[in-house]
């Protein structure tokens, strides 16, 4: 049986992006789950944080969204109150404020509405695969995984096709702001103070702000109300209206978070196919389409963690988490927890039930785009598995340098066609 053997020494520094540059340090997470499930890490660039690594603990804490607030930042990096306000999206709000924004867009991202995109997604998949597969050997992240969510983003936002490569490049610069391949302003390597009120401390945030404003002006002038952006501008049932800053931040969130996560799920699925050749036959059997997307997304865990902040003292496994402490839910660890999953270090496309945490399930901030992600993943692999007889690695793959986004940024593969 193929299993995956992580190669970290079991004592990786979780605050360091470099610890994740060969993939998540799963030996470290396994040790912490076993020996020290509420683990304190000192953090050179700010205050330390607690790591929660067991599946059951993440589930138990995630639902306590008053005790463990999102409103003080959701990444490990410290933010001043001024930065939190300037950069926040509904990801960084709690309770009724969060719901007030969320319900404006919930229907647009709901399962039945997203299901209506299936034919479009399939059409895009066919185009993308028809371009990529005849090359034989190519970078599958670049030519397959990156393409589908990018092109769907355009449909969701109602942006012109020709703007998409630029938008995605800026989205990459935001979310991969710790990887020098994606940004000239690497977060922990140079001062980004100039951009501290921008999303992800990035100049790309400023450019996306300007783009969003311009796009809405153009759409308004043309009377174009297609896409999700008009929905978010509408007053909610409680009468609240989104502010300009919140709108622009929401736009950045869609471009960055909604895009990369699906890309890296697809990339992880493709890499898993190279590593476990039986997965292609499982797909070809036609018996795993109801379950495979969740397993691929469990395996990928593109959002490695989200952070909360304790609003009162709490005790967990003999440790005292103090009010004000940062608490990090490591979904990457919960998704490999032996207590929650049989053979967690192996991809099983038929896995069911699959109570993975990649979407932040169990809490109010559960991924808004989860139906879209699942649909894109399933349809892409349906179309791929129809067209190939084999896929193998054509060289080493490379992960993003980030402890926040788990992603294979380059994935050389060779495909064999029937």
């Amino acid at each position, binding site marked *: 049986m193929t299993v995956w053997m992580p190669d970290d020494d079991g004592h990786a520094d979780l605050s360091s992006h470099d610890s994740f540059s060969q993939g998540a340090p799963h030996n470290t997470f396994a040790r912490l789950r076993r020996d020290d499930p509420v683990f304190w890490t000192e953090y050179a660039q700010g205050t330390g944080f607690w790591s929660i690594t067991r599946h059951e603990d993440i589930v138990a804490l*995630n639902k306590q969204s008053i005790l463990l607030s999102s409103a003080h930042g959701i990444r490990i990096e410290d933010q001043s109150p001024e930065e939190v306000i300037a950069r926040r999206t509904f990801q960084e709000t709690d309770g009724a404020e969060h*719901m007030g924004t969320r319900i404006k867009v919930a229907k647009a991202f709901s399962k*039945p509405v997203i299901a209506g995109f299936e034919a479009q997604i399939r059409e895009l998949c066919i185009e993308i695969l028809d371009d990529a597969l005849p090359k034989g050997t190519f970078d599958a992240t670049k030519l397959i995984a990156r393409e589908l969510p990018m092109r769907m983003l355009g449909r969701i936002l109602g942006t012109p096709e020709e703007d998409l490569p630029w938008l995605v490049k800026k989205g990459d610069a935001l979310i991969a702001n710790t990887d020098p391949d994606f940004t000239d302003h690497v977060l922990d390597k140079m001062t980004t103070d100039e951009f501290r009120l921008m999303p992800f401390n990035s100049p790309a945030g400023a450019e996306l702000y300007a783009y969003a404003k311009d796009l809405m002006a153009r759409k308004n002038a043309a009377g174009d109300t297609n896409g999700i952006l008009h929905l978010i501008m509408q007053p909610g*049932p409680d009468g609240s209206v989104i502010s300009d800053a919140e709108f622009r931040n929401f736009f950045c969130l869609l471009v960055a978070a909604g895009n990369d996560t699906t890309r890296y799920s697809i990339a992880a699925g493709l890499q898993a196919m190279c590593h476990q050749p039986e997965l292609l036959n499982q797909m070809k059997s036609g018996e795993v389409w109801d379950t495979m997307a969740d397993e691929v997304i469990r395996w990928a865990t593109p959002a490695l963690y989200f952070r909360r902040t304790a609003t009162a003292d709490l005790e967990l496994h003999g440790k005292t988490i103090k009010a004000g402490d940062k608490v990090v839910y490591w979904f990457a660890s919960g998704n490999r927890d032996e207590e929650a999953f049989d053979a967690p270090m192996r991809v099983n496309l038929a896995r069911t039930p699959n109570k993975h945490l990649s979407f932040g*399930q169990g809490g*109010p901030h559960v991924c808004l785009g989860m139906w879209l992600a699942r649909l894109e993943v399933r349809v892409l692999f349906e179309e791929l598995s129809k067209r190939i007889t084999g896929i193998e690695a054509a060289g080493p793959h490379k992960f993003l340098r980030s402890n926040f986004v788990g992603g294979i940024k380059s994935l050389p593969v060779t495909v064999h066609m029937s």
Partner: protein
Amino acid sequence: MKATWTLPDGSTKTADVAEGVSLMEAAVANNIPDIEGACGGCLSCATCHVFVGEAWLGKVGEVEVFEDAMLDSTDVERTDASRLSCQIKMSAALDGITVTVPSV
């Protein structure tokens, strides 16, 4: 106390549900199909939609504003019997409640 789910295939499943536990939590714990409970009961998703049995409709309480909004996002279109089952907490008055899992 007990609750019974009628499943999309027409079969039924009955489970013990403790006081104060929501029907969503009970469904997830008992692996009731198509009840995902993705947001843990925070009204951020609509993945615990059920149709409440007619005899119980008057006893499950009112639909609040956020639940009402989220019921517009369910996979199967809402009816007057629709509730998000995370908002139905077991109590003596609901012992024996029957709900139907919507069939896609």
